[in-house]
């Protein structure tokens, strides 16, 4: 077994370098490189290992050398972190056998080491349908490994703001994290808009109504609802700052957290279970001009959200 090499990251010369780069537009590798301290990243099972999916050939689909996820270790502000970044543009960032196993192994290592937090840069449509059973089991194993890591005292922070959102089983993994940061572009949901429309009709959910999609599943709603702990601007710098804050403040995990989460979710159902739309929920939370929320720029939105509801850091 050879010593792992540092994998140099690409520098897209036509994109402004530095952390003002947009999160949404960046590739997984760009996010990793720019999020972490310069030159600190060491990749585990990098692309040169060519651990590709064995299951795409039968569908005549091309593979990617890293199977759509970059995992490894680096530093943020000098402190070590483990990190996994999904590439949302490869197969929709979906979980396949190899892709999922890389994250499972990382979380199991974090569980055993105990002292290094994990950042998961979600960008996923959920299970990769060409490998549906393997993808689903990978997600189940990831959830188990994540809870084991949290039980060992590890903070697992999810960052959500990419093109594919955080859908399906990805949404369940996100719900297992210690804390979540989401940007305006981020979406978190179990069923996607098209799937709801296909199954229940356009009256139930018009998947082409982008404003509806974002009110229901998007980053601002998740922050206001309490489905995410922090709202980030769509820049690497903002996600970096937020990640550092959440590593600091995220709760230890145990029975108390689960009880508090049960109470938090029961209260949510009581307060908002009859609301027809996010606008109604935001109004009920005391937002005076709920209709204006979608257009609010990030800084103003963050100030508003902090007034409405500060996340309890012990109920996720």
């Amino acid at each position, binding site marked *: 077994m050879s010593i792992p090499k540092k994998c140099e990251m690409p520098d897209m010369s036509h994109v402004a370098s530095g952390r003002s780069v947009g999160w949404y537009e960046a590739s997984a590798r760009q996010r990793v490189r720019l999020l972490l301290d310069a030159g600190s990243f060491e990749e585990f099972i990098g692309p040169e290992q060519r651990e590709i999916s064995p299951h795409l050939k039968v569908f005549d689909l091309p593979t990617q050398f890293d199977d759509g996820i970059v995992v490894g270790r680096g530093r943020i502000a000098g402190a070590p972190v483990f990190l996994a970044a999904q590439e949302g543009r*490869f197969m929709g960032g979906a979980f396949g056998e190899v892709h999922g196993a890389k994250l499972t192994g990382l979380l199991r290592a974090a569980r055993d080491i105990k002292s290094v937090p994990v950042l998961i840069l979600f960008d996923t449509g959920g299970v990769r349908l060409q490998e549906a059973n393997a993808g689903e089991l990978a997600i189940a194993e990831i959830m188990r490994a994540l809870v084991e890591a949290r039980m060992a005292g590890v903070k697992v922070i999810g960052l959500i703001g990419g093109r594919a959102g955080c859908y399906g089983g990805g949404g369940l993994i996100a719900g297992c994290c210690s804390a979540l940061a989401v940007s305006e572009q981020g979406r978190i949901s179990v069923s996607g808009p098209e799937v709801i429309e296909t199954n229940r009709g356009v009256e139930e959910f018009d998947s082409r109504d982008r404003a509806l999609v974002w009110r229901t599943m998007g980053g601002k709603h998740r922050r206001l609802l309490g489905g995410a702990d922090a709202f980030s601007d769509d820049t690497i710098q903002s996600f970096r700052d937020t990640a550092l804050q959440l590593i600091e403040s995220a709760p230890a995990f145990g029975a108390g957290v689960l009880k508090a989460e049960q109470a938090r979710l029961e209260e949510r159902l009581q307060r908002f279970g009859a609301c027809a739309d996010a606008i109604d929920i935001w109004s009920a939370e005391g937002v005076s001009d709920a209709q204006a929320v979608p257009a609010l720029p990030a800084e103003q939105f963050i100030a508003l959200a902090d007034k409405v509801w500060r996340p309890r850091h012990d109920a996720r």
Partner: protein
Amino acid sequence: METLSYRHKAQERAAGSKSLAIIGVVASGNLEVMVERVLPDTECQVDINTAAEGFAAVWEAVVADFVERRSTGGLKLSINDGGARPDTVALRLAQAVRLIEEDER
């Protein structure tokens, strides 16, 4: 799926000392190029995996042009192609070489 491979004599060794670089994403109209410094300085190889069959002649031409314009000695370039146009391929090949010639960070 089609697999193609082209080996060329290189005019010049690719500058720098980095041994690995990668650019691009496997998606519709896009491709990833991984470049490894693993060959003798006078050799360059380009391996391609593509779902778009029947374009060998185009690949051959793009690769030949690339090898002629750039210093590619010592480099093995491995491509996973999602159906990119020739100009996108040429761009990624050039980006890949520029990356591996960069200083270590």
